[in-house]
């Protein structure tokens, strides 16, 4: 995928006033709700710390937990498949579907399957994948991609969705734009599909190593339909979703819903362990995908990006995401978490501008239910990307680097620092108006200075003042 870069994509997104209005309403609504949902939990900070510890521990012994999970799933009647990359995962899923003789499958919303472009891979094998999550259905019908982890069609308003349904759904010619009516139309359309489908594909929110239990957290019930009614269930899961113990669920099931939909609990959570005679699918396949996750695991600072439980709280509070929306990030993982996850999943080959798509305000860290220190990882990745070199640094970057190097050289040499102050201060004082440094700065600095005021430099340096203080008794 060509990396056109966040700055260019963001400029396009910012020009779309409808998009900005939709995003503003949505992110502010969910922000306030989340605050209320979190405020009523007296031990929220302790839960966050427990969540961080559990995920950190899971990652530090990931190989053992995955082997334990594999054994437990197989004991419970499931089959485990390993995939080193997206191509391998897609091939495994397509082969499994082909073996059932089915040409159509129903899907539960899964960001991972968007990441590996499973639907395209299946289409190439003559298999149609029907998205059943309302937002995923909206995006599939409009040929659009997800712009948010939790509400993938957040960039669309009701009028746009109404228009789409009237055009694409059978018997929806006089459908209104009321969300209730729109959801009802989706229910009627999908019900027949659920009843007829023999194969379902899902993602997973977590898998418990010690018991082999897999979990899907959802709201609409399309997940329950897909996980219960078909004969064959194929679940594709990133290797980082493993949790060592069943008891770890008691933490995650408190952190995730309140951070995500800002509810005490989401309407439905399904937990299954292999296959159960007389209840649900008769065949269960779990596909474990690396897909670049081990790149992130190698980086002891960046590793914590794998702790993410995909709640999307960081997107909703991010001043950058709020204005640009998800598409500008050019990744299925947008927002602050996407800015640290996307580059690492591609071993810094893709998403190279994303670590700069942040003001480093730190709001993402504050809301993260598993305390991922996103700002620190952002800065760390900026360093790695710069150190790794760019094919052709921009003029501004070269000037900035030269400036920084000159500053470093000056700070290292006291005599040079004194000289710089003696020469620089009178020049800077001349730019002062009303005790602010306001005059236009020269060259490329002009653009930077146009939107910023700096406090005026003092009349004398600290060093001069200190010396004068020693001399006057």
């Amino acid at each position: 995928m060509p990396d056109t870069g966040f700055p260019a994509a963001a400029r396009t997104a910012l020009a779309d006033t409808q998009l900005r209005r939709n995003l503003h309403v949505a992110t502010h609504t969910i922000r306030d709700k989340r605050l209320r949902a979190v405020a009523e939990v007296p031990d929220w900070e302790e839960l966050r710390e427990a969540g961080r510890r559990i995920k950190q521990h899971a990652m530090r012994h990931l190989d053992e937990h995955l082997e334990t999970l594999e054994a437990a799933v197989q004991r419970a009647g499931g089959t485990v498949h390993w995939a080193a990359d997206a191509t391998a995962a897609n091939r495994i899923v397509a082969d499994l579907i082909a073996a059932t003789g089915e040409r159509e499958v129903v899907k539960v919303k899964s960001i991972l399957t968007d990441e590996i472009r499973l639907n395209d891979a299946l289409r190439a094998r003559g298999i149609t994948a029907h998205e059943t999550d309302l937002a995923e259905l909206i995006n599939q019908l409009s040929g659009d991609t997800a712009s948010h982890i939790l509400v993938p069609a957040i960039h669309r308003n009701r009028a746009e969705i109404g228009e789409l349904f009237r055009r694409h759904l059978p018997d929806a010619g006089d459908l209104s734009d009321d969300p209730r009516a729109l959801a009802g139309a989706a229910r009627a359309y999908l019900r027949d599909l659920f009843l007829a489908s023999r194969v379902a594909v899902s993602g997973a929110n977590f898998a418990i190593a010690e018991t082999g239990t897999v979990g899907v957290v959802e709201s609409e019930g399309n997940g329950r339909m897909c996980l219960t009614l078909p004969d064959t269930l194929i679940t594709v899961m990133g290797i980082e979703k493993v949790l060592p113990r069943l008891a770890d669920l008691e933490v995650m099931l408190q952190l995730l819903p309140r951070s995500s939909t800002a509810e005490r609990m989401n309407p439905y959570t399904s937990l299954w362990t292999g296959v159960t005679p007389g209840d649900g699918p008769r065949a269960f396949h779990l596909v474990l995908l690396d897909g670049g996750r081990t790149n992130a695991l190698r980086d002891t600072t960046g590793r914590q990006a794998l702790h993410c439980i995909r709640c999307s709280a960081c997107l909703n509070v991010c001043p950058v995401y709020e204005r640009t929306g998800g598409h500008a990030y050019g990744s299925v993982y947008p927002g602050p978490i996407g800015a640290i996850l996307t580059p690492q999943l591609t071993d810094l080959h893709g998403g190279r501008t994303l670590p700069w798509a942040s003001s480093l305000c730190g709001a993402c860290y504050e809301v993260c239910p598993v305390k991922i220190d996103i700002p620190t990882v952002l800065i760390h990745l900026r360093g790695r990307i710069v150190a790794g070199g760019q094919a052709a640094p921009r003029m501004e970057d070269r000037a900035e680097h030269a400036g920084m190097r000159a500053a470093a050289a000056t700070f290292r040499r006291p005599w040079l620092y004194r000289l710089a102050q003696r020469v620089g201060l009178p020049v800077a004082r001349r730019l002062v108006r009303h005790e602010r440094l306001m005059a236009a700065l020269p060259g490329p600095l002009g653009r930077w200075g146009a939107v910023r005021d700096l406090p005026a430099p003092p009349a004398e340096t600290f060093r001069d003042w200190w010396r004068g203080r020693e001399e006057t008794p």
Partner: protein
Amino acid sequence: MSDRALVLGRIRSALADVPADEPSAWSWAEDPDPAAAYRRGRRDEDRAVLVERFLERCGEYSATVQRCEEPSLVAALTAICERHAVRTLLVPPGFDEHRLPPDLAIERDDPPLSVERLDIGDAVLTGCAVAIAETGTIVLDGGPGQGRRALSLLPDLHVVIVDADRIVSGVPEGVDALAAAVTERRPLTLISGPSATSDIELTRVEGVHGPRRLEVLVVAPSGEDPYWAAAERG
């Protein structure tokens, strides 16, 4: 090399910084850190308070909630079925016969009904394994009187009977109570209100794919001194 060996090899080389003797069997539950001492193992909370909290929070999901004592259970169920004009009530195997409304057509999921039959079903009546007060959550674990998952999914109305002594304080206590079902590989479904979506402008709409209506009936085991008497006294 198989993908399995490849992935595990990549993981092991990526984790070269982790000391070989660091225990991998660590569990928060067994070795709690004071910084992460969240509330768990609560056993001493007043049951009347738990029932009140469960009713309040479950009700806030726009489920219809009410409580009754065992002797008036059948009447309460009959009233619910009348209110929703239920013609036939679907019932899982193992459901207590004494609790069934006598004047209503009952269809048992034994032998299992077809999904087409479930799809046109008006209503299903089940019990539950555990209910969580703090989150207003009902958990079905496929045990007796709860049925297979499709049974409580396809009909339009789900009526759940929650025995008051199955209500626990919070999520940790709930997960704890479900460990046995997981060990027996029974599937679990956590239900918090009727199905819903917020996908359109984050406006919550109830009743997408699961049952569109959820009726919850909390039942005290005897008519003598129901749990909530204390709460009502104040």
